[in-house]
C-alpha cells in the first residue's frame, strides 16, 4: 500500500482563504450597492477637485489634475481592500464563545486569522474593483466625461510597480485587519476601536484626500506612517507621482510595516488569548 501523503504545511491556511473567499463572494448585492455609492462619491470628489484646480494656479499643486483623478478612482475601486472593519465571523465567534473552537484547531491561530483576513480583504475587492475600473476608465469617456476618467498607468514600469505595491498593500491591510480582529478579544463589541482605526485608515491612507494635498508640515509624518502603504504609495506609483526609481523604497516601507505589525499582532494575540484563557471565556 502506498503511504498516505501528509498534506503540506500551508494547506490549512489556503483552505481557509478559499472557503471564506467563496463565502464572501455571495455578497453580490452589497457589492453592487457599494459600486453605486462609490461611483457617486468618486464623481463628487472629482467635481470638487476640478473646481479647486480651476480656481488656483495648477503649477502650485503637488499633482496635476489627471493624476488626482486617477488617484481618486483607484481609491474608490480598492476601498474594500482597506482594513476598515472587523471580520463579522470573528466578532460573532468572540461573542458566542465559539472562539474556543478556534483554539481546538491544530494550527497556528495567528496564521488562521491572517488567512481569514486575506479572504476578507480580497473577495469584496474582486467584486468591486473590476466594474469600478471599467466604469471609470471606459464608461466615463463614453458619457462624454473623458476629463474625469481613470488613466492607464503612467508607464509600463509604473504599471508593474503598482502591481507589486498593491500586493504589498494587501499584505499590510491584512496585518492591520488581524489587529482589528484581535482587539475584539478585549472589547467584545469592538466598535470603538474599529471606528477609530477606520477613521485613521481612511484619512491617513489618502482615501479621503490624496496625501500630497495635505499641508507641507504633515508630509514627513504621513509619508512614514503605515497607512500610506495601504493606498497612497501604490496609487502614486500608478499615476507616476512616484517615479519608478522610488519604487524600492516604497515597497521596503510597506513590507517593513507589514512585518512589524505581524509581530505586534502575534504578541497581542498571545496576550489576548492568555486573557481569554485566564478568564475562562
Amino acid at each position, binding site marked *: 500500500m502506498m503511504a498516505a501523503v*501528509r498534506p503540506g504545511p500551508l494547506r*490549512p491556511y489556503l*483552505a481557509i482563504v478559499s*472557503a471564506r473567499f467563496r463565502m464572501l463572494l455571495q455578497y453580490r448585492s452589497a457589492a453592487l450597492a457599494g459600486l453605486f455609492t462609490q461611483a457617486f462619491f468618486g464623481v463628487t470628489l472629482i467635481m470638487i477637485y476640478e473646481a479647486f484646480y480651476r480656481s488656483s494656479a495648477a503649477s502650485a499643486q503637488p499633482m496635476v489634475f489627471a493624476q488626482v483623478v486617477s488617484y481618486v478612482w483607484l481609491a474608490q475601486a480598492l476601498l474594500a481592500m482597506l482594513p476598515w472593519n472587523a471580520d463579522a465571523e470573528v466578532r460573532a465567534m468572540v461573542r458566542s464563545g*465559539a472562539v474556543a473552537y478556534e483554539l*481546538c484547531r491544530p*494550527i497556528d491561530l495567528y496564521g488562521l486569522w491572517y488567512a481569514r483576513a486575506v479572504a476578507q480583504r480580497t473577495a469584496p475587492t474582486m467584486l468591486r474593483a473590476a466594474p469600478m475600473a471599467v466604469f471609470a476608465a471606459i464608461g466615463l469617456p463614453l458619457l462624454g466625461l473623458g476629463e474625469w476618467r481613470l488613466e492607464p498607468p503612467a508607464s509600463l514600469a509604473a504599471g508593474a510597480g503598482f502591481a507589486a505595491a498593491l500586493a504589498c498593500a494587501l499584505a499590510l491591510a491584512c496585518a492591520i485587519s488581524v489587529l482589528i480582529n484581535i482587539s475584539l478579544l478585549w472589547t467584545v463589541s469592538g466598535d470603538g476601536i474599529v471606528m477609530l482605526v477606520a477613521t485613521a485608515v481612511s484619512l491617513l491612507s489618502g482615501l479621503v484626500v490624496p496625501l500630497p494635498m495635505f499641508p507641507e508640515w504633515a508630509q514627513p509624518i504621513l509619508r512614514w506612517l503605515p497607512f500610506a502603504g495601504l493606498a497612497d504609495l501604490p496609487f502614486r506609483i500608478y499615476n507616476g507621482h512616484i517615479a519608478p526609481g522610488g519604487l524600492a523604497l516604497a515597497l521596503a516601507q510597506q513590507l517593513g510595516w507589514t512585518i512589524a505589525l505581524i509581530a505586534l499582532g502575534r504578541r497581542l494575540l498571545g496576550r489576548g488569548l492568555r486573557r481569554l484563557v485566564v*478568564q475562562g*471565556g
Partner: protein
Amino acid sequence: MPQIVVEGLVKTFQIAERTPGLWGAVRGLARRRYRAVRALDGVSFSIERGELVGYIGPNGAGKSTTVKALSGILVPDAGRCEVAGRVPWRQRIAHVAEIGVVFGQRTQLWWDLPVVESFELLRDIYRVPQARYARSRDAMIALLDLEALLDVPVRQLSLGQRMRCDLAAALLHAPAILFLDEPTIGLDAVSKLAVRDFVKRLNRDEGVTVILTTHDMDDIEALCTRVIVIAGGKILSDGALAELRARVTRERWLTVDLVDAGGAIDEPDAKEIRREGHRVCLAFDPQVVTPAELIRRVTSRHAIRDLFVENPPIETIIARLYEAHGGSAGAPDGALDRTPDGDPDRSPG
C-alpha cells in the same frame, strides 16, 4: 498508564463585582472590586483508554472549566494535567490534533457553508490525508445518517441534525479522545437517542475514550459505566453508577395501584412519598424489610391492581448527594459555566 491524569487542579476566576444602579456603574469605571471564585478546588481523577465517563454537576460546579483545561483552552492555577503524556495548554497544537471536542451549545461548522464543505475544511485544517478522510467521512455518514444533509447549509439544519453533523465533524480526524459538553442539550427524544446510540458504538467499536458532561441523567444511565460528580469545584464521587447509588442511599421504591383511591397504607417499614389518585409510592430500605416481605404485607392488607419496585431515579440520587455536601453547589447558577455572551464583565480590564 492512564490516558488522562488530573491531579490537584485548581482554578480561580476573578469576577468583577458590579454595584447596581447608575452611581454604581460610574464608580465601576474608576475602581472595580473583584471577587475570587474558585471554579476548581483540587480536582483529581484519572481515566484509562477506552473509558466512557460521565462528568456531572450542577451549573457552576466546574464541569466546563475541567473540560476546557483538558482541551488546552484554559490554563489552571495549580495542579497537574496530562493527556496522552502531554500537558494540554503547553503542547496545544500537538494535543488538539488528537482530541475531538463538541460543545453542545455551539457549532464548529461554518454557518454559511454546506455541511460537506465544512467537513472538507476540517480535513484540510487537521491535515487528514484524502484516503483516510474519505473512509472516516463515509463511516460517519452511514452511522449518523447524514447523506441527505451533506449539501444543506449549516444554518438551515435543525438542532438535532446539526448535532449529528457536529459529532461527525469532531471525529473526522479520528481522535483518540472525545470531549462532549452537553451534547444532547435541547434535542428532541429521537435525536437524543441517535446521539446516545452513536456515542456508545463509537466507544465500544472504536475504543474512543469519551468524557461526557451533561445535565441529562438519562444520558448518564444510558451511556456511562463510570460517573464523576463535581460540585463547588470539588469531586464528590467517582465510580460506577451502581456504587454511587449504593453510597448515597439504599432506598428503593414500591409503587402500587390501589383499587380504592382513598385507602391509607399504614406500614411501619415504608414511607409514603407520593400519591396520585390510585397510585401510591412507598420508599423502603431493603435491609430493613425485603421487597418480597413488603409486597406480601401490602397485598395482604389492600386490594391491589398493579405494583412495581424500582430504584430512585438518578436525579434523586444526585440531588441527595449535593444536599449531603452542604446543599450548595458553590457558585450561584451559571456563575462559572459562563459563556462570554452571558458575562458582561469580560469587557475592559
